Structure formats: structure tokens, C-alpha cells
């Protein structure tokens, strides 16, 4: 079916180090002592907690409800008792904490009732909702909710299944393809059904012959429209855009989605999870994780989500000279700041790093503009220009040179003879630009509100003046009527005093009406917050009232 491969420019060939962990079959990790399940499992969305401490839960039970368009459900990974709902560190470069549900397993690992979805009988929307309910997110690392990707756009020509696994050391997808090829392809066929793609292309780097063989064997039973394609081993061939380019020749620019070009890409793990979700109704509660690096027993394990890394590592037995742990691969992973972080849906690998395996880079030298980075960059950027502008905090220029096209693959830093942590500069610059954008929005909002407030004050002043004038006229009329001396003519003449008087009067009048006038035209978020505050205030008032008598 596929006639030729398209290359992509750039790329690097680090030592693969796959053999360490790819030799042994996937083992089931033993039941951990406790599970810490973060409510934030997909990007930019934290699920709303559905359980309370002390509550008993079953495996696969809904414990978090996805909120907003990018939300997905979170489930208990095993049966047991919720002991705590508290912030725990997450596997994120910031090392910050996020609200997590802590479950003490009861050891029974008892499933909640679950039934398969009979795909032909349900509408597309229902199927998407099903995936969302099963908590399926991309397992290739980005953690983007799969139902959103599936739901976006139609007229898709090609479904790409990403089995490239281009990062060194990681072998979880390799093992998954070797051992569960039919399941992966079943998931792929479901995804193809859902997005209406004509063909399925499974891209696997050619350094995984066993996986290719297994997948091809499984694919041959599925007839036409599906092909398992070996792609040349070249990091980052597994990057979505690069793989799509290699397989189809289509280039997806930054800010555009594959669907705009008739291609969509899913990781093999994701396809496997989709298979489990549709064919068995199982939500996503476990995944395959590679444990490798400086360890005694490297290998792949089927791990319950929420298992803390410290516990997981005991399986592999880190050696004594291990000085840090990397979650993900050596090119794009993050160093763990705490071993209490849990395995999440995007965790594909934990590497024990020793100075011998991962020597710290020598000190950074100035960029000599040698262009090695540009030759290595798969996004065909000029990394040294991005670096130059990011370092000088000239973010406008950095954006002009397509900073946001950078996929942070690390190729540039890998080849740089000056050992500059280039990607760090891009991350810094991107963060700053996002922060600027947030600030700009805040300042626009502040300007609007300030102007509105001025306008309101102006209006109130006018109203007041009009009222006062009316009152004065009335009084005069009264005086004329009755001949009585005016009660306080000075008050009406002294504007300041009049103002105070008016304000007092108004305050008295409106004491009951608590909606202040300064809360007009607000966004929904802020309205919600105000409602919250009001509720809290009511409660306090109530307490005050209770106390008063």
C-alpha cells in the first residue's frame, strides 16, 4: 500500500540502549501499598473529586469527573479505601503539587461492573463520551484527551499509529507491540472507525524487528487498509509531525491539527487502551512502564496508575551509584524532584541515572553559530537564533523566528559543541511569552474596569447632582409654600457635605440590597467566584446572626 517513505530534515542518532529492557516480557507489578491518583491527568484540566476520605471504592470506579472540554474522567486503579484527598507532588518539571486521591488497596483488586460498548449500535457522540468516561488520554506523552482528538474534524484520510518509540532506553511500546499486537491493532481499527479514516499506517522504527514482525503478522489478518511500516531509526521519528511526514509526506505546521490535513496520529498504547475501553469497558487504570538505566533488573512492568515511583523502583533495583531519576526518555524526560510522584497515564519510562551513564555536561560556552543545531533540528528552525533572542529576552524576535514551532525535542542541545542547554532557553522564553499574554489580558481587563468605574462614578455624580437640584427646588418650593425657613440650606450648597449626606441616605436606603453596583459585566469565571464568596458570606452572616442572640 505504501510506496515510499518521506524523510524529515534534521534528527540525531543517540545510542539506543533498548536491549537492556526489551528482552524480557511485560511483568505485572505487585500491588503497591498505596496509590496516589492525581486528579489532574490530562493537560490543562483538573478533574472534580467525586469521593470523600473514608469511602470504599472499587477498581475502575469513577473518582474524578472531567471538567471543561479538555477534561477526562479519573478512576480508582484498584479496590480499596480512600484515605486522603490532598495535594501531592506530580511528575512535572515544576515539582509542584496537585490534588490527589490516596487509596489504600484492599488487595482484592475487585473490578466495578463493566460492559463493552457495542460500537455499531451507538452514535459517534456516545462513543466519544464513552472514551471520555473511560479516561482515555494520549499515552505517547502529551496526555491530550483522546476523545477530543477523535472528535475533531472529519474527512480524514490516514490514521497513523505511532509505534516509533524513538527515544533511547524506552521499550514499553516495543514490548506492547510484541506481546499484544492484535489488541493494539484492534484499538487502531476502532479509532479508524471513529475518525472515518481510509487507511491505517503503523510506523515502527526499524530497530524493533520483533515488534514489526508481530504487528505485521497481526495486521495480515485484518485485510487491506492497514500497513505496518518500518521507518528509519532517527530521533525524533516518533514525534507526531515527523512520523506523519515520514509516512505520508504531509507537513503539519505549528498551530494546525493533523485533522486539517486529513491525518491523525495515536500512540500504540493509546490504541491498546481504546481497545480495552471499547471491547471490555475497562477504564484506563494501568499502563506499561519501562524501568531501566542503572538498575539490576531492567524490564517492562504493567503498573497501576497511582503507583509511586519509589515503590515501583524496588522492582528493578537501582544500583548504588544512582544519583537521580528521569521520568520519560533522556531526550525529553524530566528529572524527578521527588520519588513520591505517582505513575500517570503518560508515564512510559523511569530511568535510573548514574554519572557514568548520564555524565553531567561540561560548563556551557558561548554559541559559536556553528549551525550544528540547525542541521539537527527536525522543525528546521535556526535554534541558535532562538537561543540568542531568548537569552536576550527579545521575545518578539524569538517568535518571529518561529519559537513556537519548536517541539522541544532536544536535538539541538544534543549536538551543540558549546553544550548550551538550548531547550531550557526555549522553555523559558515560551513561559515568559505565555505569562506576558496572561498579563496583557489582565491589564486589558483592568483598563476596562477602571474606565467603567470612572464612567460609573461620573454617572453617579451626575445623578446625585440632579437629585440634589430637584430636592433643592422642592425645598424652595416648600419654603415658598409655608414660609418656613429652610431646614439646612448650607447642606445643599456645600457639595461635599451634600455628597456625604446623599451617600448616607443611599446607604440607609439600600442596606438590604446587597448587590453592589461594581459587579456589572463580568466573565463567567469571576461570576462563579463571586457567587462562591457570596455563599461564604451568607454563611458567616448566618453565624453572626446565630451568635448575636
Amino acid at each position, binding site marked *: 500500500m505504501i510506496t515510499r517513505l518521506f524523510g524529515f530534515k534534521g534528527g540525531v542518532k543517540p545510542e539506543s540502549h533498548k536491549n537492556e529492557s526489551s528482552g524480557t516480557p511485560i511483568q505485572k507489578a505487585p500491588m503497591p501499598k498505596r496509590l496516589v491518583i492525581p486528579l*489532574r491527568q490530562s493537560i*490543562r484540566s483538573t478533574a472534580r473529586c467525586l469521593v470523600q476520605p473514608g469511602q470504599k471504592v472499587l477498581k475502575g470506579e469513577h473518582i474524578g469527573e472531567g471538567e471543561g472540554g479538555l477534561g477526562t474522567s479519573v478512576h480508582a486503579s484498584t479496590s480499596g479505601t480512600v484515605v486522603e484527598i490532598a495535594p501531592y507532588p*506530580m511528575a*512535572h*518539571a*515544576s515539582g*509542584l503539587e*496537585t490534588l490527589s486521591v490516596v487509596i489504600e488497596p484492599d488487595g482484592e483488586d475487585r473490578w466495578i461492573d463493566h460492559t463493552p460498548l457495542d460500537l455499531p449500535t451507538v452514535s459517534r457522540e456516545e462513543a466519544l463520551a464513552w472514551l471520555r468516561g473511560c479516561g482515555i488520554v494520549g499515552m505517547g506523552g502529551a496526555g491530550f484527551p483522546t476523545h477530543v482528538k477523535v472528535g475533531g474534524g472529519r474527512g480524514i484520510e490516514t490514521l497513523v499509529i505511532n509505534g516509533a518509540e524513538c527515544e533511547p532506553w524506552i521499550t514499553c511500546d516495543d514490548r506492547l507491540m510484541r506481546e499484544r499486537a492484535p489488541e493494539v491493532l484492534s484499538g487502531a481499527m476502532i479509532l479508524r472507525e471513529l475518525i472515518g479514516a481510509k487507511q491505517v499506517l503503523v510506523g515502527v522504527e526499524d530497530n524493533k524487528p520483533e515488534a514489526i514482525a508481530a504487528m505485521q503478522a497481526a495486521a495480515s489478518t485484518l485485510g487491506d487498509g492497514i500497513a505496518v511500516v518500518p521507518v528509519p531509526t532517527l530521533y525524533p521519528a516518533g514525534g507526531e509531525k515527523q512520523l506523519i511526514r515520514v509516512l505520508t509526506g504531509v507537513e503539519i505546521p505549528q498551530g494546525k491539527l493533523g485533522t486539517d490535513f486529513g491525518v491523525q496520529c495515536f500512540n500504540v498504547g493509546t490504541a491498546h487502551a481504546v481497545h480495552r475501553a471499547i471491547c471490555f469497558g475497562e477504564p484506563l487504570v494501568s499502563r506499561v512502564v519501562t524501568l531501566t538505566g542503572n538498575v539490576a533488573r531492567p524490564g517492562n512492568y504493567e503498573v497501576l496508575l497511582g503507583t509511586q515511583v519509589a515503590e515501583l523502583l524496588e522492582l528493578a533495583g537501582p544500583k548504588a551509584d544512582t544519583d537521580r531519576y528521569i521520568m520519560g526518555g533522556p531526550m525529553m524526560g524530566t528529572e524527578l524532584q521527588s520519588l513520591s510522584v505517582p505513575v500517570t497515564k503518560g508515564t512510559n519510562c523511569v530511568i535510573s541515572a548514574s554519572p557514568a551513564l548520564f555524565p553531567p555536561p561540561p*560548563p*556551557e*560556552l*558561548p554559541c559559536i553559530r556553528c549551525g550544528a543545531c540547525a542541521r539537527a533540528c527536525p522543525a528546521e528552525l535556526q535554534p541558535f537564533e532562538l537561543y540568542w533572542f531568548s537569552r536576550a529576552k527579545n521575545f518578539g524576535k524569538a517568535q518571529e523566528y518561529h519559537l513556537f514551532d519548536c517541539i522541544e525535542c532536544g536535538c539541538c542541545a544534543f549536538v551543540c559543541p558549546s553544550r548550551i*542547554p538550548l531547550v*531550557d*532557553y526555549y*522553555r*523559558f522564553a*515560551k*513561559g*515568559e511569552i*505565555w*505569562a506576558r499574554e*496572561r*498579563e496583557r489580558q*489582565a*491589564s*486589558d*481587563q*483592568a*483598563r476596562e*474596569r*477602571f474606565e*467603567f*468605574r470612572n464612567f460609573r462614578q461620573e454617572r453617579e455624580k451626575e445623578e446625585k447632582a440632579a437629585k440634589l437640584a430637584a430636592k433643592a427646588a422642592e425645598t424652595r418650593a416648600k419654603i415658598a409654600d409655608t414660609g418656613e425657613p429652610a431646614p439646612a440650606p448650607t447642606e445643599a450648597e456645600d457639595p461635599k457635605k451634600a455628597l456625604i449626606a446623599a451617600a448616607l441616605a443611599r*446607604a440607609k436606603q*439600600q*442596606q438590604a*440590597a*446587597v448587590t*453592589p453596583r*461594581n*459587579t456589572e459585566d*463580568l466573565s463567567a*469565571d*469571576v461570576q462563579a*467566584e*463571586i457567587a462562591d*464568596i*457570596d455563599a*461564604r*458570606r451568607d454563611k*458567616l*452572616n448566618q453565624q453572626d446572626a446565630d451568635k448575636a442572640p
Partner: protein
Amino acid sequence: MLTAILIMTGIAIVLGAALGYASIRFKVEGDPLVEKIDAILPQTQCGQCGYPGCKPYAQAISNGEADINQCPPGGEEGIRKLADLLGREFKPLSEEHGTEKPKSVARIDEQVCIGCTLCIQACPVDAILGAAKQMHTVVAPLCTGCELCVAPCPVDCISMVPVAETVENWKWKYPVHELRSVA
């Protein structure tokens, strides 16, 4: 000598008349520069610049009355942008106008607040909720951190708390420059 005077006078008459006429005929209208400057200012409306709000400060810069380094909330970045816009040299924040601080928001200690409404009157962006004799609350997303509400409070119940770091607003730090750190 006479020819000199005659020739120059001729030139002068022509030019003087033309320019005098032109100065009336093509009078310059509104100043878009102020808008551009105002767009750069952070709209905190705190008055630390010595002007009652950002717009007046923008006006003053445009008139050449104020320098570009008087707005602490805008920080170095803001000064840089102003310098760029106005084609001037960057200069550090003027010390007499304050220092750049981490962004904070006001918080009212609800147990202490007596509901005097003074802070509501002070807040330039209507970020405080509450009515007379009721305890007041700051709507954090609206608060610009200008601190104007702090001073008027008769019971000192308003404090500025730094905005907490969350995953949403966390930023990668500037990479350490090894060359310097070795020294």
C-alpha cells in the same frame, strides 16, 4: 548689500507666509501616541508613577513631562517597551518611585473587617465586593495588586499576599549562565 537683503527678504516672505498659513491650516489633531503608551502600561492604576493612574502618566510621557522609568508595576520590561516605542535609551527603574515586587493580590481578613466601604472606594478596578457594614472580600482575579486599598482600611485588615505558584502560572526559570556562575 541691498541685493542681499532683497533676495533674502523675498525668500523670507514666501517662506514665512507659507509656514504661518500652514501652521493654522494643518493643525495637528489628537495624539495617538498616548494610546500606544497607555497600552504598554500595566493598568494597575496605582499612582506610584506620581500620576493619578496609567492614562495620565501616559499623557505626561507623551508631553515629555515624565520620564519612562517611573512605573514600578510595569517593571524593567515595561520600561524597555517604552524605550523602544519612543526610541529612547533604556534606563533602570527610578528608585524614588519604588521597586519591582512580585505580583500580589490583596486579601481582606474577613474576621476583622468592619464593612466601612473605604476600600471599595479606593479600589480603581472594582475588585472588592461588599456593602456598608458587611464584611468585604477581594475578587482575586480582578485585583491588580495596586495596594491602594491597604492604607485606607481603618482596622488594617487588608494584607497583600503574593500570588501562589500553580501549574497554570508556573514558568521555567532563566537558565543559569555557567560562565558567570563559575566565577
